[in-house]
């Protein structure tokens, strides 16, 4: 954020010199032409221009993205929870894909113990209660006080996991706007606490597809479909599985600020609580 703040200050100075909007923009064009490989520069300049109320934004140059291959993914996740090496392979794959949604959808395949054995996380005795758990469950437990006795130093564990997530495709997990999304993700996760069946995750995935939180392609691999295609018949039933008390807590947390957040599937889900 610091560079965006610097650009903000630069614009303030130019405004005091009565530079026009286009003159200010031209100065940034010169800067971007000098440093064209710095993609983050575009974001910082756009932030500064937006904060100042100007109508110009720079199009972010396209970075080559790797296309999702469900067959490749299916091979990677088959039996991954049993193998430290396969877990490492999956993490490398997720880092290459650099896809927020894909990584989040894959965390339940990543066992904490494999990350410890691979040397990615250090082991402490206090991790004993969570050693056999998957990363998704542990991370979601960080979004409530209900499991503080299990997690121990929750703040430390959350930071540790987020630092790891930032390297495997969730680059922006620590930004402010992600807190709301992860709180909503946590609410969906509470479905697994009420519904102990094997297809509890299918129900969560169905809700995500219904609200366009995640594209359905991420729930289709190995010739199987991991969400319920009969969305309209089951959506309300699945939503009723969300923990009511936690739902109220999250609702109270955001009810006065929800209008400030970007429109997305998580926000629509919030409005349906």
């Amino acid at each position, binding site marked *: 954020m610091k560079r965006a703040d610097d650009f903000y200050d630069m614009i303030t100075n130019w*405004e005091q010199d*009565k*530079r*026009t*909007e*286009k003159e200010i*923009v031209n100065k940034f*064009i010169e800067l*971007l*032409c000098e440093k*064209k490989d710095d993609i983050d520069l575009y974001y910082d300049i756009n932030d500064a221009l937006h*904060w*100042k*109320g*100007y*109508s*110009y*934004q*720079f*199009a972010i*140059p396209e970075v080559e993205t790797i296309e999702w291959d469900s067959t490749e993914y299916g091979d990677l996740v088959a039996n991954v929870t049993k193998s430290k090496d396969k877990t490492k392979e999956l993490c490398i794959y997720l880092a290459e894909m650099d896809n927020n949604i894909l990584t989040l959808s894959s965390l339940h395949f990543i066992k904490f113990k494999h990350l410890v054995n691979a040397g990615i996380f250090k082991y402490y005795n206090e991790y004993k209660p969570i050693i056999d758990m998957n990363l998704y469950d542990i991370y979601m437990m960080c979004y409530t006080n209900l499991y503080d006795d299990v997690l121990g130093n929750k703040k430390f564990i959350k930071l540790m996991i987020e630092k790891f997530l930032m390297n495997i495709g969730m680059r922006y997990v620590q930004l402010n706007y992600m807190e709301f999304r992860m709180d909503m993700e946590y609410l969906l996760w509470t479905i697994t606490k009420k519904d102990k069946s094997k297809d509890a995750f299918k129900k969560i995935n169905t809700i995500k*597809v*219904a*609200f*366009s939180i995640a594209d*359905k392609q991420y729930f289709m691999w190995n010739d199987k479909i991991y969400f319920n295609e009969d*969305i*309209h*018949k089951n*959506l*309300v039933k699945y939503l009723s599985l969300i923990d009511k008390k936690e739902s109220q807590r999250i609702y109270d947390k955001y*009810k006065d600020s929800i*209008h400030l957040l970007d*429109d*997305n*599937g998580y*926000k*629509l889900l919030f*409005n*349906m*609580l």
Partner: protein
Amino acid sequence: MTTEKLNQIYESLKLHSKEYAIDEIFQLFIDNQLVVSELEILLGKFNYYLPDDFHKMDKSEQKKYHQHKKHLIHLVDGKETIETYSVFNKAYFYELVEASSKNKSITKSLMQYAGQICSMPIHIITMQHVKVKNLDFFMQKKDFVDIIDNQTFMTKKIRTLYDLYFYVLLSSNMAIPKPKKMKLMGQLNDFFKNKSGFDLDLEIPFNNFIMFIEMLLSSLPRKNANTIKMKFLCYKPTYLNDNEYNMSLENPRTLINKHYQAMVQNKVKEVVNYYNKHQDILNSFPYNGYTSIYYSLLEEVKHEKS
């Protein structure tokens, strides 16, 4: 800036349209050439007045106040190309709405602005404000003039494009015989797509779906329909004025349950058949609240049947 300079600016702008002049004056403010008091003086010469809270706004909010165009700069090999596009600006939109009330030319501008934004919710809201009497396309056709002068929609006179469209669509065969109805709907669709700058093609499945849900919502009082759309995030909060919807904390699904009978009436079969015919594409639509409204209605149909 001196009074003389301000007068020079006024003289250079007064021969242009009011719309153009206001845009230029705001641009001077954005360009840091005017302070707020000078902005007010110039705008006042064109009978345009800023709201009382303008002075309390942050400088960036003041600059965005009238901003209805955005510019996206593409830099390729050191060369810039600028893509300019219209965006919804509440102040600008409702200025046009008010000015268009008895003015055909500004009505045209309003429809063109909505067409440039290219958003179904904005199309709907615009239709609800455009007065049909300002549209020569309809006022020069006897069939439409007869409807506009003699019929009512939802117990009120047909005043707007929205009223007209849904009156024709929902009329019984007794009120408008089927062949005539098809002709009128064809003319309406032609107007939306080709004859008005509105740029609305109702043959596109997504647009068609939105209008299907609007058809169900049209049977509700406007405020109730708006409240449902706000709750389901069909509209952004800036699209409507505060008195146009109810800000209560009612759960969206409760709202659907409350208004289900009025919305669905004798159209249950149609509501269900729509899903049977369009299931594949429904799930392929981009994120929108209308799909959630529809799924909630289907749930109510299911409960009613069980």
